């Protein structure tokens, strides 16, 4: 008789425990999915931006015949970015991938910045309709990237917060929920001294 009651109590306690753990597990899964989904938004916009760049370079090439280095730096940075993006898309939130993407972004931003600075010397190019349209699209895409990045980082922070509170942290380590990493753009290292043209 006592055994029966004992078993019944064990069963109920076990059940409550299981449900509790499953509840936390589901919460973490949902949060994780949310930041992964948010990353796919970034993916879409970054791809779009990267697709604009070859056209931009082609248009500029026609006018800027002596700026080969600057143009090539842009192409190079773009390719690095595309590769980093593909890696990150496989493992959104993973530390290496996000860091690589962050520095690729910085590199590309730097290269583009130098390119646009040089534009000033080419009024014909600046007035070119195609170039104007491309720049407009680029700006608009950059806005969307920034927005998507913000949403992603918000989702990552929410996930990390949920993961780190007690008792969630116990369940998280049981099932291998890793910390997620933000998408941050680092300052580019100085690669070359700026060229001065007279």
């Amino acid at each position: 008789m006592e055994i029966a009651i004992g078993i019944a109590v064990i069963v109920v306690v076990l059940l409550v425990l299981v449900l509790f753990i499953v509840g936390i597990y589901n919460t973490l899964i949902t949060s994780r999915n949310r930041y992964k989904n948010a990353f796919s938004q970034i993916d879409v916009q970054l791809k779009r931006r990267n697709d604009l760049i070859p056209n931009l370079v082609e248009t500029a090439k026609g006018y800027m015949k002596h700026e080969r280095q600057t143009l090539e730096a842009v192409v190079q940075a773009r390719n690095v970015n595309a590769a980093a993006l593909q890696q990150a898309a496989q493992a959104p939130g993973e530390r290496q991938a996000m860091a690589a993407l962050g520095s690729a972004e910085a590199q590309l931003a730097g290269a583009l910045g130098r390119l646009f600075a040089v534009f000033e010397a080419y009024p014909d190019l600046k007035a070119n309709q195609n170039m104007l349209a491309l720049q407009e699209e680029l700006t608009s895409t950059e806005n969307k990237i920034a927005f998507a990045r913000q949403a992603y980082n918000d989702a990552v922070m929410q996930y990390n917060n949920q993961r780190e509170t007690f008792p969630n942290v116990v369940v998280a380590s049981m099932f291998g929920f890793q910390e997620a990493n933000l998408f941050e753009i680092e300052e580019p290292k100085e690669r070359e001294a700026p060229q001065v043209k007279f």
Partner: protein
Amino acid sequence: MSTDFFEQQDVARRRTGWLVFFFLLAVAATVLAVYLVVAILVAAAQAEGQAGAEIESLWNPPLFLGVTLGVVSIILLGSLYRIAQFSTGGEAVALLLGGRRIDPQSRDLAERRLLNVVEEMAIASGVPVPPVYVLDAETSINAFAAGHQPGDAVIGVSRGCLEYLTRDELQGVMAHEFSHILNGDMRLDLRLAGTVFGILMLAVLGYYMLRIAGRMPQSNRKQGGGVALGLFLLGLALVLIGYIGVFFGKLIKAAVSRQREYLADSAAVQFTRFPGGIAGALKKIGGLPERSRIRDAHAEEVSHMFFSDAFEGMLLNFFATHPPLVKRIRRLDPTFDGRFPVVVPLREMGLAEADTGRVAAADQEAAQIREFLATPLDQRRRRARRLSPAQAISEAGTPKAAQLFYASSLMAAMPKALAEAAHEPYLARALICALLLSRDLAVRQTQLDALAKQAEPRLYQDIVRLAALTDQLGEEARVPLVDATYPVLRMLSPRQYAAFRQHVETLVEADDRIDLFEYMIRVMLLRNLDVHFGRTRPPIRRYSAITPLVGPLGTVLSTLAYAGHETQEDAERAFSQATAALGRGVPLLPKQDCTLTALDKALAELAQAAPKLQRIILAACVASIAADGKVAVRENELLRVVAGILGSPVPPIPLSELGATTATN
């Protein structure tokens, strides 16, 4: 004898009663079964101690009480847990099954096609466009719709749908799912899934106990061994008993949800006017080796939510959740010979064949729709159509083929910049803000000034830029555009949503003279999104009698009467006509008491009315707004927004009516 939308919703609500009844029956049966097993175990244990003693009566009140309490609390806990998990909306079901959300800007052709089909259907039904999830791991053909109400619905499809179904067939399946969304079946399904989980759980628990018992040491036969054996037997018993739960679960689902699948099929035909679409999908299911089987572990819990049977050929299929495949096909296509086609992925057939969509509307209707949409705004006479309350009711929740064609034509005619903005989260915010700008230039300036203080400069510029385009839109395009932005607005982070919400409120509060139409859009939009972001709960339909609603009804009808009429007398006349049918005295409010905040509160109350009351409320709203039984495009759209807030979505204009050119300028 076709039942209308409100009756359908009532039927769905009544079925909840059957759900509760069968559930209680199942609980009682389970309690008895568990008690029987436990009592036998206990008696056997006692008999062991006294060799040769007779087995006493199995009836043991304290034990029975203990078992009852234990079993009931287990079942209740399980059900409450699952119900709580599903309370956040349809997304929980999609994620449970391992669904991946399709990005609104996806470039995959098959995904794009599906998104377009869903968008057209939602606009044609007058509901917010639901997000779409795909179950990548399921190679069969199946689909589901989940949620509490159209505002938080999601659509899910299996990978097989994307790979095997043509556009027409996709449309047929989606039309079937939309009928569930509109009829209130979704809410019942969600409750069913949550409730039944409690019964299924026993089997799971028994399984765990078997495992634990298997791991316990068996060295001490007398003491430890007895416990391990007892645990093992109890575990086994729970598993067997748990299958009683599975049995009852299937019984409940069959009783509650099976019959309406035929209804949903015929509603789909009404919607698309092409039985070949949904019939084609069903035939392909038959021709595929795995048919519509869903492999995910959670499939059993939600098997009733799917388009077709998630399990096939099992013994317990006596209580299948869906009618037999052949019967369903024959109802749609009487010439069906019972032979299923060989199913080939679309990729191998060439996309050209796969993408052809049929024009659903009849030729004359299609011509009128095209003509209407092609007429420049300044040349459109202020067309009005005759609208009777009875007609509006018959249209609510029952979209037809003409509306489907209208929706796809409308989106095709939309300026590219606007269509793109509607499908991307960053610009969708700007688009909504642009749509909320008043047509009155003075008011608009006030709005823009207030916004400039709050919004980032880039967003402000985008709003102004998009406003130039939205100003060119006809009245009929605004609500569909808003409907189209829902999937991307739901993708905002909570922080981003809070900021966006603030912009919307600023625009609406900037000037007291904000137009009613813009205000109503704000109410509709924010109410649906607030539920998704967890700021409010979905409305519970708790009012069955009209008496507690007289006050809010008076507010709403007064406001609509003033909105639809120029003079005080006309407004009074319309109002008294509207309230005459109610059979009780409802006072007309003076104009200055019809504030927007009062309207907001009143609508929130009315949204909690039961479906049969909704019918009366909607009829009264129509009577109140229609001047001499005629509504112009703008008033029709206002009515649609109100109906949407009340939870009884009305499709866009039946354009055969607009052909009659009664200019009311």
